[in-house]
């Protein structure tokens, strides 16, 4: 062993320590040099003699002093750093995207119905008058056609065209009932989520386009009691609460009998609040037993088959669930709104 070996060791140590940024790591290096490198130097010292032993020993001791001072220093630093470590500082922001609340609710509804053996169907948003009205037992040229403010496509000589060629934006998802049944054999269980249109001035509860979820179940022996059971289960799952439903008489050209479906208010548990307008019930759905004329439009024989159909406003349910007070927010693309979901 030569005294230059100690110089080399010192250089190597300094180089290694300088390269390292963290105190913790530097502490480790110091320890390694004292416990491994230097101790082997001291071990081999005993094989040396006189002058060289004293010279190298002195140098090695100096180096040990240097390293252990540094170690003390680093220990202090690490201790300080650990003391200063603030677990309450905010987490680093991670920017994720989000899925629209209407999509989320629609998927939730779909999952519930899929569990009950329903399939999902779709149909065109740009519909013709035959499917939107005629096939659904809307009498031609009757005020009932005006109940839904229809948005028509501008067409030349519209009045003279047959209803299959007169276009409009569908006012409900019900045309898909007939489209779906027309080229298939019963029984049917489907839901039809989708965008629908009304030509009315927009305000906090009305939009020119919004979302509906249509349901249809047709078989050999379907009853109002079956409807109650299917829809009752759906709402319990949807609101994740033991809500009840009630049926009130109503009128739709495409169902007979027809009902309005109210669900008991899950917010106040029927005690009365602003959501249910103090009645304990929220109107959520129009429904009924499919009118025989609708089955006939779809080439299904009403003497063998019957069923129920319903339509649910997705926007309205989303508003109730998230306590959103303005339907227009859904179609604003406003990130201050979207990023909350």
């Amino acid at each position, binding site marked *: 062993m030569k005294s230059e070996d100690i110089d080399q060791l010192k250089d190597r140590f300094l180089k290694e320590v300088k390269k390292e940024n963290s105190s913790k790591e530097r502490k480790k290096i110091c320890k390694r040099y004292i416990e491994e490198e230097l101790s082997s130097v001291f071990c081999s010292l005993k094989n040396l003699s006189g002058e060289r032993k004293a010279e190298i020993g002195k140098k090695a001791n100096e180096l040990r002093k240097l390293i252990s001072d540094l170690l003390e220093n680093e220990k202090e630093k690490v201790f300080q750093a650990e003391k200063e470590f603030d677990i309450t500082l905010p987490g680093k922001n991670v920017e994720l995207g989000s899925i629209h609340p209407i999509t989320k609710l629609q998927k939730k509804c779909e999952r519930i119905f899929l569990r009950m053996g329903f*399939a999902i169907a779709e149909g065109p948003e740009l519909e013709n008058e035959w499917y939107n009205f005629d096939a659904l037992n809307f009498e031609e040229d009757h005020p009932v056609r005006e109940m839904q403010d229809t948005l*028509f496509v501008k067409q030349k000589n519209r009045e003279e065209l047959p209803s299959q060629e007169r276009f409009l934006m569908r006012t409900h998802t019900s045309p898909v009932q007939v489209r779906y049944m027309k080229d298939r054999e019963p029984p049917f269980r489907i839901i039809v989520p989708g965008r629908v249109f009304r030509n009315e001035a927009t305000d906090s509860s009305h939009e020119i386009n919004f979302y509906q979820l249509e349901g249809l179940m047709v078989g050999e022996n379907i*009853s*109002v009691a079956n409807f109650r059971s299917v829809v009752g289960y759906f709402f319990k799952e949807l609101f994740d609460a033991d809500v009840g439903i009630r049926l009130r*008489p109503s009128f739709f050209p495409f169902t007979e009998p027809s009902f309005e479906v109210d669900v008991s208010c899950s917010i106040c548990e029927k005690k009365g609040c602003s959501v249910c307008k103090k009645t304990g019930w929220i109107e959520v759905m129009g429904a009924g037993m499919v009118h025989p004329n609708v089955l006939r439009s779809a080439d299904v024989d009403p003497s063998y088959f019957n069923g129920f159909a319903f339509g649910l406003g997705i926007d309205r349910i989303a508003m109730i669930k998230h306590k959103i007070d303005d339907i227009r927010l859904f179609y604003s693309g*406003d990130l201050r709104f979207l990023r909350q979901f």
Partner: protein
Amino acid sequence: MKLSYDFIQSFFKEKLPPPDQLADLLMMHFFEVEEIQRTRDDFVLDVDILSSRASDCLSHMGVAREIAAIAEMKYSLPERRVKEGREEIFGKVDVEVKDDCHRYMLRGIEGVKVGESPSYIKKRLRSCGVKPINNVVDITNYVMLETGQPLHGFDAAKIEGEKVVVRRAKKREKIVTLDEKRYELDEDVLVIADEFSPIGIAGIKGGIVPEIDKSTETVYLEAANFDSKSIRKGSRSVGIRTDASLRFEYGIPCELAEVAMERAVAMICDIAKGKALKGVIDYYPEKTRRPEISFEAEEVRNILGVEVPLKNMEKILRSLEFKVQRNNNAFYVIPPYFRLDIKEKEDVVEEIGRTYGYENIKEDPPREIIVPRERAGEFLAEEDSKRSWEALGFFESYNYSFINEKMSFPFNRKELIEMEKPVSLEFKYLRPSLLPGLLRNLRDNEMNFKEVKLFEIGKVFRKKEEEVSERKMMALLSSADDFHEMKGKLNKFFERILIDEVSYNECEDKGGLFNEHHVAKVLYGGEVIGCFGEISEDIRKRLKLKSNAMMGEFDFEKVQELHKETKEYDPVSRFPSSRRDIALLVPQETLYDEVLQKIRKAGGKTLRNIELFDVYKGKEIPEGMKNFAFRLYFQHKGKTLTSKEVNRMYEKIIAVLEEVSDWKVRK
């Protein structure tokens, strides 16, 4: 419709339930009561009459009948009978439009003293929102509110000639109505005329000429039944809608005319001290036939899912004034004349169900067989796509399906579908693309957010010739990415929904939406599935956008088709990989893709991965050239590659690259 509580009470001897209880009862079995309003001397119930029941329930009599059936109370019409005098009614009725007028009745009352109505009439009219005028006019309004039959009275002395004619208006024929407004008519409108000119717009509004006033002595009263479609057409053509025209538009039974006529004439005789002329002029060529409906009790049970006792069923139908014959379980029924809405078995089932009470129908799960239907693959593609964009930091936006004139400029005018009378010009055209919506979102969000990253999946609409079509598209917009960052995200997206092998190519489509140099079309197997690029300067100026952004639009129906649900596992090799770097000098216009294809081809299967880690031009690099730095990874599935083998492949790749005349591998 506004109903007077006091008016309804007049049909019952028994006391009605209090207004709020009555409203609850109506709501559960009949119609919704929107509001109960207390006035000085009455309660007003604002009831939402279902349109199927407009033919009998736009009347207090109809609503009273319903209350009688559901509350099991006894109702009766206050007795009113006409005592005719000796003087015969004078004149003739000539109905020229047989298809538009199903019945026309005329009666006369002489010696009438026009004056103020008794207070109960005025009170009930006011509750229903009708202004009292004089006793004769008030009675016609009163009886309409009572029975639902529009009536019209006129001063016989003010009519010229000897007959009343029901005909079509002549083109440009003029009339001044009771409210002193002037209308020019056309052939779509029906009029009631004397021998010379119109005295009223049939079923819609009376004319001012034969108006009943203080000097009136002989009143002629009309109770007619006009075809609903004709009145609807006429009402649209003149632009007037009245309580009368509304009732005709929904349709009322012909029999109602005589009920209302009898009551109104009796009341005028009684209150205005007139004397009824003998005889009725009644044009009524064809009596309406009522449907005869047969059904079994079991059918009712099957539809409702509850066993309504036979006796109850019979009682309910009788209380609703159906004619009922029952033979054990077999029913044979005829609806009362006023129920135009009852046409088949299902209509009768509804009557039984709602009167019996839907609350008595208990839940019963369906016992139908489940037929497996088509798989919903396209819905999974949509869900997966949305999740992928969410994970890539994008927010899902929903925009209107419409655009305004301002946003329509980049599109071919002939392809735009225009709306008929939209409520706002914001909704003038159906959107031919999702991009205008996202651009609008960018503009609106710019002041609040530095980075805007959005996506939307929705339908767009175009027409070719007169053929309209719609297609589901997917669009994205990001102000946080540059071209290649966006391309990277697109790659990630396609990778996640398992569409591999998309390629990018120059895009000739320069519709004005994109910067023409920074736009690419995206292809799958040679077919274009969309394009993306930087927003054009023109758009940024027009929309006053502050930030630059990337956007793109894709045919989502294609994406759904190509989307796969299951990925095949690529086995991890147990053998180590070896790495070699290549620095390649190429002319500046050489595309990366060309080089990549060459390396890939030369490397074969064992070349597992090619990484471009640097593109450099400038110092040390000759003019007009650039340097691509690649890192190549070699790995074999079945053995450890020796460095000799790796070098051989490496040399082969270099040789292939150097075959190209302007390319040079730097060593």
